[in-house]
């Protein structure tokens, strides 16, 4: 053993190196934990989460034209679009069901939509107590998921 190595061992330099490392990790910026219900992590802009059926911001009418393209594009066939004919022979949306339990969030429905009606948002809290709860109707799709907000 060389003298340098010997002195390193006698004065426990490696231990002090380790102590310095653990000490430096105490700085608050090194903390990795997120306090989940209190602070929600920001997700990427292109994140594909809960679907939403958009309405016109001013008139409040749905943007969906009932073209059924999303239902055709869906690989899982989980979208059902219900329409009716208005007296002037236009299609009008009546029901829209979206089965989240089968959805793989591929976003093909979003791409197929000719308007800006169907959109996968950044909401990610989609846990439910029953399978039925995961089948969203039109109203649920328009208002989006409403997770419990915890506070103390």
């Amino acid at each position, binding site marked *: 053993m060389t003298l340098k190595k010997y002195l390193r061992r006698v004065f426990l330099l490696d231990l002090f190196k380790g102590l310095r490392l653990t000490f430096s990790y105490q700085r608050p910026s090194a903390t990795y*934990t997120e306090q989940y219900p209190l602070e929600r992590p920001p997700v990427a802009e292109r994140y594909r989460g809960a679907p939403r059926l958009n309405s016109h911001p001013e008139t409040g009418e749905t943007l969906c034209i009932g073209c059924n393209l999303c239902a055709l594009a869906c690989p899982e066939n989980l979208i059902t679009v219900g329409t009716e004919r208005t007296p002037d022979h236009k299609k009008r949306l009546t029901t829209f069901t979206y089965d989240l339990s089968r959805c793989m969030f591929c976003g093909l429905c979003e791409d197929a939509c000719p308007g800006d009606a169907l959109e996968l948002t950044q909401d990610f809290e989609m846990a439910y107590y029953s399978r039925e709860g995961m089948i969203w109707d039109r109203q649920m799709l328009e208002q989006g998921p409403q997770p419990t907000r915890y506070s103390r």
Partner: protein
Amino acid sequence: MEYRTLGYLAEHPLIFATVKIVIVLAVLLGVVAYLVYLERKILAFMQARLGPMRVGPWGLLQPIADGLKLLLKEDIIPERADRAVFLLAPVISIVAALSVFAAIPFGSGEWVIFDPNIGILFVLAISSLGIYGILLGGWASNSHYPMLGSLRSAAQLISYEVAAGIAVVGVLLISNSLSMVEIVHRQQEMGWWNVILQPVGFVVYMIAGVAETNRNPFDLPEAESELTGGFHTEYSGFRFALYFLAEYANMVLISSIAVTLFLGGWLRPFPNIKALAFLNYAPPVVLVGASVFVLAFGLKSRVRGERRFFAGLGVLCLILAGVVALPVILGLIQGVFWFLVKVLLILYAFIWYRATFPRYRYDQLMNIGWRYMIPIALANLIVTAVASYWLTKPHAAVYSALPWILRGRFA
């Protein structure tokens, strides 16, 4: 009862001592409970976590919740256990750990419960009794893991007690006294702490202290990953809590002894240098700093209740700082403040080690104890003995060495 009788009772030494004991016990148990919290927090920060956050603001009520939980839990005694010994063992541990604090001087003057002239001997003797709690508990459980844990504990504590004891003797040679108060007074007379004269002794004592409190990297008796808890595997409920309290009280104890013997007890750094007298105003300054810290961090909290709590805490710290800045009170708590600061620093180091060092293997542990610690402690003792003899009686030292030198020269 007449006023005179009451006055007599108040002056009775036993009454005063009892009051002091109650205060020390209460403060100690609180400190121990929050030491657990501190350990969990510091450990968490060192591991890039947050630690307890959910019970109370920043998890500050966690120790109380833990204590309540342990109180309410079922107290299981194994069927084939040695009942009497099983029940007695944790009590031995906690009594040994707590009663030693009687001889620890927390400050100058009345800040010690009693000061026997064999102080350090008393401290070492009683704290060694705590090992019986661990040994008997492991044996009485009638189970494999506790048995292994307590066997390891016995071997470890005995080998490291020797090193710690010899390291302490170095200090005794310097201070010519066994009384804890006297040892601190000697350091005041010398003008510096014993650690400057006994650096090797200090290091040996600290390492042995870590081993004696069963803490990382010497936590073999209760190695979770090997022995599922070691000697206290079969203990549950409040008996387990007693062991837990004893362990942390022992940590505080080892730190207090180290502070008293090596780091000048209640003395401020460089007690005799007048230029550093401004250090006497450290207590209020530290309290103001604490309040600024609490306000700066606490008011950022997103929860309204927490913001209120931290604002209150900050204001309380400020008021305390104002009270402490009064000359009378400043003089009274000066010593205790420095004692607590030093003890806290050493406790922090204990926790720091736990976050840093992996556990030693059993043979490595024994190697370090017998092949390194004890020889180093012995060498330190011999050097100290020779040096102090030489320094106190230079002529006598020369005369006593003379025949030996002459014999070597002319034989």
